[in-house]
């Protein structure tokens, strides 16, 4: 009896959480007449898969996709490299000012984006980076507090004896980081890479502020632009929305094991 109620609640709530996705997919596949029908058509008689190709051609979505891909690939590489490097520094050395610096690093997570967005705009404007993809890529090469924190926690679980053995064999700190710790960190790097990929791919406010020229737009910005221009073209907007959702969803399913089990528990417990 109690179990039945529990399952009932879980199934009902899951349906609530999934329904918006399903509804969007159905909307994307409707004909124009199905779209405006009332009561709403829940199950169209013909599925218009060609809506996807048509929608894609209505704006330079290929360009937006290319820009998004450049940003995501280059910034993810930078994030993985820089955050792991810094995390190794904090985890494996004792040096003057280390603990205050690490607390400072954690404190930076509290700073609202709104405070930084105006001066960053001025800074990138002065550098001539507005309307280029650099503001979305370069900062990722300098590490991010949350990722550094996660990776440092992970490194601290790796036995010190491994470092010592390598040092006995003549390895220097760089070699220990690059040859030993980086491979050992792989599960945590998958997690950081996935989170960063999602942030970079999904980002709207950064591109909104730093990019004005349509040829530099990323996919979320391009979709928002499309909605502004063709508010009533609902099936096309729905189709591009589905395409925008797919990469993070697929990546999430692939990396699920690492996100759910390994890191989230340790990230909070410290």
């Amino acid at each position, binding site marked *: 009896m109690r*179990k039945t109620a529990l399952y009932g*609640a*879980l199934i009902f709530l*899951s349906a609530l*959480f999934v329904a*918006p*996705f399903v*509804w*969007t997919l159905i909307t994307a596949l409707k004909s124009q007449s199905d779209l*405006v029908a*009332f009561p709403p058509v829940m199950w169209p008689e013909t599925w218009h898969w060609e809506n996807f190709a048509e929608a894609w051609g209505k704006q330079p979505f290929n360009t937006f996709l290319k820009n998004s891909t450049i940003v995501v690939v280059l910034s993810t590489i930078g994030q993985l490299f820089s955050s792991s*490097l810094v995390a190794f*520094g904090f985890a*494996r050395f*004792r*040096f003057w000012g*280390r*603990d205050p610096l690490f*607390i400072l690093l954690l404190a*930076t997570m509290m*700073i*609202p*984006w*709104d*405070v*930084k967005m*105006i001066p960053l*705009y001025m*800074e990138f404007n002065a550098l001539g980076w507005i309307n280029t993809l650099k503001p979305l890529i370069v*900062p990722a090469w*300098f*590490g991010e507090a949350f990722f*550094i924190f996660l990776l440092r926690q992970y490194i601290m679980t790796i036995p*010190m004896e491994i*470092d010592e053995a390598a*040092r*006995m064999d*003549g390895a*220097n700190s760089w070699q220990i980081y690059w040859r030993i710790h980086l491979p050992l960190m792989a599960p945590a790097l998958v997690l950081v890479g996935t989170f960063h990929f*999602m942030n970079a791919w999904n*980002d*709207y406010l950064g591109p909104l502020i730093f990019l004005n020229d349509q040829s530099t737009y990323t996919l*979320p910005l391009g*979709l*928002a632009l499309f*909605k502004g221009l063709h508010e009533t073209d*609902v099936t096309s907007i*729905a189709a591009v929305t589905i395409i925008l*959702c797919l990469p993070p*969803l697929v*990546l*999430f*399913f692939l990396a699920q094991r690492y*996100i*759910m089990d390994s890191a*989230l*528990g340790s990230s*909070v*417990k*410290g």
Partner: protein
Amino acid sequence: MTLADQPLSSLGQSRRRRSIAPFLFISPWILGFVFFTLGPLLFSLTMSFYDWPVVGQRDFVGLNNYTTMLSQDPQFWESLAITAKFAAIFVPFNIGLAFLLAVLLNAKVIGSGFFRTIFYLPSVISGVALVMIWTWIYASNFGLLNYFLGLVGVQGPNWLGDPNWSIYAIIFASLWGLGGTMLILLAGLQSIPKELYEAARVSGVPAWAQVWHITLPMLSPMLLFTTITSIISAFQQLTIALLLTKGGPLGSTYFFAMYIYDNAFKYHDMGYAAAMSWVMFVIVLVLSAIVMRSSSAFVYYEGEVKAQAGGNDA
């Protein structure tokens, strides 16, 4: 384990190299901190004392931006009130519903991994996609929500067009993304030793008392953490307001963050916008400090966690 307790290798490296190597390793973050965090913060603080248009003459005006905001700008107070209302409703519901889902998932059920995935899905998509999806759910003519409300005999409001309902539309849409909070609370629930519940059961402690005396105290560090992150994200609410309601109707969702954005990038009044962003920063810091202070009475830390979190407070 505290930072200082971490055993460090002392073998095979000269003192001189040791002194510079760590700084080489952390140098990316140091540089990034200077150029993308500290520098911008100081710059925007400076800007807040200026009349600073994007192009043209900059004039030092002292505290003028701050006094204007507080005494002569009704929109500032209006937007602040809207944001405060949003936070006051969103934060408790976000934590409460995430807790409820986490408790359901923590019960021994077949397929809990599957349900956990489902609840987390909305958290992985772009805010832009979220807005598109909810636009059609809320639409008054062909929208899904009002159709279902109609089936049970309720005449649904014009969610996005009625100033009395628009903020709730944004709150519901935001709550769809509670998966991150839920995962943190679930991880917390799973770390509570089962023996505590068994001992309580053996001594005849009723279920509600177990929640009150075991679950909530053991979960309190995660509840504190998620409350603070929820407050910060509530005050930063911008994407949904910009795209779903554009601040309307009748300014009913003209959030504080959106007013800052408009001042900076629509009216090009960078100094005024910078001053307001600092006001937001201070509000967020004060609220977080209040939550942390008041929590010391009821947040329960185990030894190891205490060392870590105590360090973070400083």
